């Protein structure tokens, strides 16, 4: 019973996070909806279930390497009361702390400004190494996109982390199967994911990235891992939660008009 309630709460919060994302994007008349919506459950779990920013000065680190999905992170920070409603409504406006792609020099809860893809994982490795020198039992999380792993630097970083058995490092790979223009398989096939990461000496877990029990189980396994870095392949749906956005390459960064905004809001109630 307790478990069922917890799940219900989790999914209800996911809907709220999505509604705030859509609100921001409509107000800004720009931004990336599809790639933000696919990572909602993952962020919901890390920030509300694992509460990684509860004590910000002693936090587990999180880098959103696919920086264009930052509306999801802003929405989470808003729902954590770390940014207020007024700030949220300034997304992408001139002078805002909430830049179109994350900017740590403007918003302190951003650990790394990203946007040029492929760079976050290396910095997460730097965090993991620093925690080892400092003898701190803190984790380093990095969320990358499946299209993003076409960047060569990802594999330089993956090779390093695997070779050095960085067990305090966890990559979440948002496998929504699409990138800017179309499916990854039609752009540059990134499959097979599991074999690639395993060959680089990573522990690979493949889950439904929208399912609370599966996310929960995967992160529990990561926390118990003693030998290797972990990659959680979160199989997700681009545009998840809004019917006309789901699995649509067009909604990677399409502008929401009044009509589609209204439908989206109704679907998220």
């Amino acid at each position: 019973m307790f478990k069922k309630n917890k799940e219900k709460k989790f999914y209800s919060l996911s809907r709220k996070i999505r509604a705030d994302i859509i609100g921001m994007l409509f107000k800004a008349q720009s931004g990336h909806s599809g790639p933000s919506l696919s990572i909602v459950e993952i962020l919901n779990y890390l920030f509300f279930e694992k509460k990684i920013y509860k004590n910000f000065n002693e936090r587990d680190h999180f880098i959103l390497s696919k920086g264009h999905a930052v509306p999801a992170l802003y929405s989470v920070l808003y729902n954590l009361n770390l940014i207020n409603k007024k700030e949220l409504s300034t997304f992408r406006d001139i002078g805002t702390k909430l830049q179109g792609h994350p900017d740590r020099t403007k918003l302190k809860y951003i650990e790394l400004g990203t946007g040029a893809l492929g760079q976050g994982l290396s910095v997460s490795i730097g965090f993991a190494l620093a925690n080892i020198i400092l003898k701190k039992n803190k984790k380093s999380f990095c969320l990358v996109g499946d299209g993003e792993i076409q960047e060569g630097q990802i594999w330089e970083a993956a090779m390093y982390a695997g070779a050095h058995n960085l067990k305090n490092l966890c990559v979440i790979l948002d496998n929504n199967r699409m990138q800017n223009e179309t499916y990854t398989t039609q752009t540059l096939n990134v499959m097979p994911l599991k074999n690639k990461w395993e060959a680089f000496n990573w522990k690979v877990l493949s889950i439904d990235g929208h399912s609370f029990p599966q996310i929960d189980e995967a992160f529990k396994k990561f926390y118990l891992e003693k030998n290797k870095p972990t990659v959680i392949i979160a199989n997700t749906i681009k545009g998840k939660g809004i019917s006309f956005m789901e699995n649509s390459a067009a909604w990677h960064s399409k502008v929401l008009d009044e009509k589609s905004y209204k439908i989206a809001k109704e679907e998220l109630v």
Partner: protein
Amino acid sequence: MINNAKKKALRNVFGEHLVYLGKKNKKICVISCDLKSATKTSNFFKVFPKRSFEVGIAEANGLGVATGLALKGFIPIISSFGTFITGKFLEIRTSISYNNVPVKIIGTHGGFIGKDGATQSGTQDLSLMMSLPNFEVFQPCSPLETEKILDYVIKSNKPSYVRICRNSVGEVYAKNFKFIPGKPKELIKSKINTIISSGPLIFNCIDAISHLSKKKIKVGLININSIKPFDYEALRQMLKSKKNILIVEDHVSHGGISSLVYETIAKSKSKFKILNIKSLNLDGKFSESGNPSDLEKFNGFDSKNIAKIFYEKFNLAK
């Protein structure tokens, strides 16, 4: 004015001083991209293995790892050939410059490096790094200047690029030399004629100046050790009485020392007395294979040719 008793290769000075700094400051760590011996960080690796990271032939990842370490309060020094490391421009631009993270990049093998040729020679590095917001860019010419610049860079909370050449050179400074970021240093004063240079080429210029003084042509020397920040007004003051100016740099013509000098003149509202100004540089070309001294001669950077510019091109022969 040159103390040759203290002649040392600048990359060796860098390597030794890094160990000295590492003993004083436990936050300093070093990242190598498979070039520990060539960039002389190998001593640091031996003395402080726990603060040393070999990332392999993967400069982009190395730069990101350095960024993460810096964000956690460490002072990461990443060294490679200048051309290789600044070639990872997008990684430096986003992870380090945009995020304003105090990563310290050491680019060795600038200018005429020798037989390895153009692919290994840093001849665009200053231009690239000067363009990046938040970055400081320095180039030492002598052992003491190398140490003082490193001392400053370690304390600075900004990202830095230091171009360190491999040349073995003497010392032009007295022991009490103070490095001031931004300020060009007038090593030899002269009212009418001057050379402006940076890095170890300063020594070719000093040779040229002593050669010229034998011909009764008095020429001064300005050393630009701090490329960014840069005090334009200080250089303007130094140049206001000058009639003949020669710029000497082992770098392409765009975005290096020459650009700083021409900008100084263009930005100023006051009039100059300049009759002749010339820049000796790589003129938008690549370097090539050859002994460094042969390459310098071939490209006209040897002291004889530098001197010749004054009495032939500038018509100062008496």
